[in-house]
């Protein structure tokens, strides 16, 4: 096939040891980039992540911040004990504080 070429490589200076810092590249940084950025090709391709919509959504959630996901009303992580525990704590603390603040405001008003 004429489109598959094996012509010689183009000699271009690379930017030094290209992979030196990269082997250690954080998996999160890599996933975020390869799943969420770069060129998206739709149409005549046989397979891409776009075809697998639900999975794509789920994978996106992995890389989305928890807050973003929560805004979207998606809570698949709610079985995560760490997050659930912390969330519940925060919600409870917030509720407790509001109640106490309301009470002290009432009392301050009476005192004055």
């Amino acid at each position, binding site marked *: 096939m004429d489109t598959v070429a094996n012509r010689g490589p183009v000699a271009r200076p690379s930017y030094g040891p290209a*992979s030196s810092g990269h082997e250690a590249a954080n998996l999160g940084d890599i996933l975020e980039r390869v799943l969420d950025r770069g060129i998206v090709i739709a149409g005549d*391709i046989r*397979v891409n992540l776009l075809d697998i919509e639900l999975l794509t959504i789920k994978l996106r959630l992995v890389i989305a911040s928890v807050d973003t996901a929560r805004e979207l009303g998606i809570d698949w992580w709610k079985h995560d004990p760490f997050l659930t525990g912390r969330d519940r704590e925060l919600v409870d603390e917030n509720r407790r504080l509001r109640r106490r603040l309301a009470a002290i405001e009432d009392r*301050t008003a009476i005192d004055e």
Partner: protein
Amino acid sequence: MSDTGTYLYAVARDEVAACPPGVADADVRTIVRGGLVAYVSSVPMERFGEEPLRRSLEDMDWLAGTARAHHRVVDAVAAATATAPVRLVTVYDGDEQVSDLLERRAGDFAEVLAQVTGRREWGVKAFVDPASEERPDERSGRDGCEQAGKPGKPGTAYLQRRRANLRGREQNRRQALARAEHIHAALATVAVASRRHRPQDPRLSGRADWMLLNGAYLVDEGRVAEFAGLAEELGGGGIEVTVTGPWAPYSFTVMETR
């Protein structure tokens, strides 16, 4: 349908001397057409077909390995020539389809590649340590106590202290966000283009710290030292700034092909 597909990693302007193996340890080849070079490898459809992928994408180990292999190829190409990375798991029926793509979208690819020529992407994140964020809170809490402590009403003092504490925390949060805005704006002046991405989930970043900024910056090769120096200066005062890169220009080669 054949039992192998053509997996596309990236489209670049030149061929590179050496390329690491791709996904599933396959050798990476090039398809050249109209001054563009596509980096591809053959993949078995029994593993990269839609149905098998549906299952394997659930497997984080498989996903991690595949993402790393994809990235390794993109990275090697981008280190040597202007490169447009393609989204993970983009599989064509065969090489002819990839060749057609290069011809059909030659203008778009040329435009994208021109934008990233002589430039690399740098990632900058800013973190605030929740513990250091608490410190000013506690201070203002104590002050509040001295001002508001009425004898005989320890509960009142406590609650007012708590209220001051909450106000302090909210103020710290706003200050931290303003710092992130400032860091991003300052870095953007040295970059050719910049993007702010969603802060990463702590499970992805691997840090419990609050990520204030997850930015990507396209920087001219000649200004990298300046950029890195600036990023370093912008940290401090409870905010940690980290720089990653150079990356292939993942954030600056957005092109929706039809």
